[in-house]
């Protein structure tokens, strides 16, 4: 969990993932694997297998939802826009970290004392919110946080025993799982692919697949658990603490059925509790990768996390560990039996 803690506490706004790259480079250097980088900001770690064995790409994205400075007020606050999808309602009254220096700041609302009754239920949109870092005037704010500075939530990773809490399980949980999966022994070539800019439109995925031409992509990610009260059963994405989530289809990809069935069968044979992603929503890097190199089959394994895309989310250790176990078992199986026909 130490690696997950480091990954989650680091700042990685889309296009600004250098901290994550450093943590990954440090981790893989212990395994004796040097990084491969490209011009857009993806980073890859290749664990060579035997020639002739399949090349399997383990995919996760490094970025998280964030804010970006778009202006400065005369009183010295920062105007912001979203990078990736954030519900306006979760931004109210949060602590944030601004820029590489991690300057502390807060997003405040009008105090309840002075709200009129009709304002009680009105949500302030992002473009009307400001980040207050304590600057006295515009000039100081411009100096401290120039336009384009990225802002992430100030949330500490905490280990609650069976559950962990942090800000960015989407997709640091995936990054963690890729790292852990690659510790396995296999004759397949494994490519750990950590892409940039997924939250702003799957920006990095294409380059990864074109470069390494894998036979199969296993996308690992943190997905949204939907087992909250008020959510009807059939709208429930995934249940927390009920094992890794296997996608059959989302808005970007239909997972090839023979691969999906092989994955399920692997889970059953290894007695790993799994579940389907119960809704056909969202999209992942797989949506972009499936077309490349004449079509690259992708499967998606995800850990159900509660409240992703918000300042604070929860993940269960059992789900995270089972996700790694399943991806290892799946690769083992392909190593032994080859790709499904």
């Amino acid at each position, binding site marked *: 969990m130490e690696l997950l803690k480091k990954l989650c506490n680091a700042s990685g706004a889309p296009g600004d993932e250098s901290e994550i790259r450093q943590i990954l480079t440090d981790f893989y250097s212990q395994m004796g694997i040097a990084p491969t980088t490209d011009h857009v900001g993806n980073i890859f770690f290749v664990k060579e297998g035997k020639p002739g064995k399949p090349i399997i790409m383990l995919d996760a994205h490094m970025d998280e939802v964030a804010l970006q400075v778009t202006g400065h007020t005369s009183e010295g606050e920062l105007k912001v826009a979203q990078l990736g999808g954030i519900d306006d309602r979760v931004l109210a009254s949060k602590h944030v970290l601004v820029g590489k220096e991690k300057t502390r700041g*807060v997003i405040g*609302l009008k*105090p309840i004392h002075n709200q009129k009754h009709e304002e009680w239920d009105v949500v302030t949109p992002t473009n009307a919110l400001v980040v207050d870092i304590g600057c006295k005037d515009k000039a100081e704010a411009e100096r401290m946080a120039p336009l384009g500075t990225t802002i992430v939530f100030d949330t500490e990773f905490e280990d609650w025993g069976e559950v962990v809490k942090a800000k960015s399980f989407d997709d640091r949980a995936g990054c963690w799982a890729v790292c852990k999966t690659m510790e396995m022994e296999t004759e397949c070539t494994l490519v750990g692919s950590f892409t940039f800019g997924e939250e702003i439109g799957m920006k990095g995925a294409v380059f990864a697949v074109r470069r390494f031409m894998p036979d199969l992509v296993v996308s690992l990610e943190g997905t949204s658990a939907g087992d909250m009260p008020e959510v009807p059963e059939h709208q429930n994405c995934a249940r927390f603490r009920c094992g890794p989530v296997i996608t059959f289809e989302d808005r970007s990809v239909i997972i090839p059925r023979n691969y999906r069935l092989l994955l399920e069968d692997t889970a059953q044979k290894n007695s790993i509790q799994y579940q389907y992603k119960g809704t056909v929503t969202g999209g992942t890097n797989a949506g972009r990768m499936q077309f490349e190199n004449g079509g690259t089959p992708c499967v998606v394994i995800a850990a159900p996390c509660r409240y992703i895309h*918000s300042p*604070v989310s929860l993940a269960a250790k059992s789900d995270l560990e089972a996700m790694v176990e399943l991806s290892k078992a799946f690769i083992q199986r392909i190593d032994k039996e080859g790709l499904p026909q």
Partner: protein
Amino acid sequence: MKETLEKFVRISSSSCHEEKVAELFRQMISEAGYETRIDRMGNVYAEISCGADGAKKIMITAHSDEPALAVQGFTEDGFVRIWDWSGVDHKVLPGQEVVIHGTCEIPAIIGILPPHLTKPGDKKAVPITKLYADTGMPADWVTGKVKIGDQVTFKKRFSELKNGRVAGCALDNRLSVTMLIELAKKLKRVKLDVDVVLVCTTQEEIGGYGGFSAAMDVKPDLAIAVDTTTAEQHGESGKSYLPFDKVCLDNGPIINPKIRSAFMNAAEKLNIKTSEYIFSSTSMTEADSAWEAELGRPISVVSIPVRYLHQPVETVDLSVAESGVDLICEFLMGLPASLEGVI
């Protein structure tokens, strides 16, 4: 002052559950060299005697409770239903970290429906009836540790911003409690002609009950409430918002004008910038309780402007709070033994 404030801010203390702040307050006052006592309401008194028999008594209060939530029930899956206990804006709750005070302190978060279930453009706030505290644990674990009515407080944050400003939870009113500590330290070094009673009071956010009983107990000749008030912030200004960089002296029908002018003189002497909040009936602080309890004793209110009041990101300029302490000290030093000309 910052270190003391951080210590106070890190403690959770909802209305009726102020024991921990009381404990720290007693400890710090005794470090400053004074005796303390506590009453049945949980008010902590620090009496600073000038030594003269029958000296006039000045009571200075600061409340120790904060806006909080309470456990209202549980769902089958172990989500904790919450309800407002004392002045929380439900709009700030989604995505907030909280602590449930059950048999132990249980960390939890208040989530929001997953994005695929919220309609884009849905600009209405989630009502508190549809918000839950989530510990991530199953129902039997949760109900074994948490009972209905247990307190739920914000996870305590304390961030240092630029220019000596700090942001955190419960600056309303731990800031004023901290100011009392600083004042006690300062008073150790000066000679007064009056007795001063510093009171760390309880249950202000739910109606000022602690301040009421403190006034009955002390029977002061003059009462001053130290509190926080709404500061000017982005997009908000006007009568209800006070300048961020000035100490605010309240003015209204129940404020004694002579005390006010004595404060103004002290401010002028120390070159401290002040602003004025004018209210029409009551000050909405503990001073009201003191005034009511003791049949209209002279009262005054010193407020420090805080941005984003009652939210976990309350922000204050600490130099203003320091000026506030200096101002009260200067005011006390200028009081004659008879209080003549002041009341």
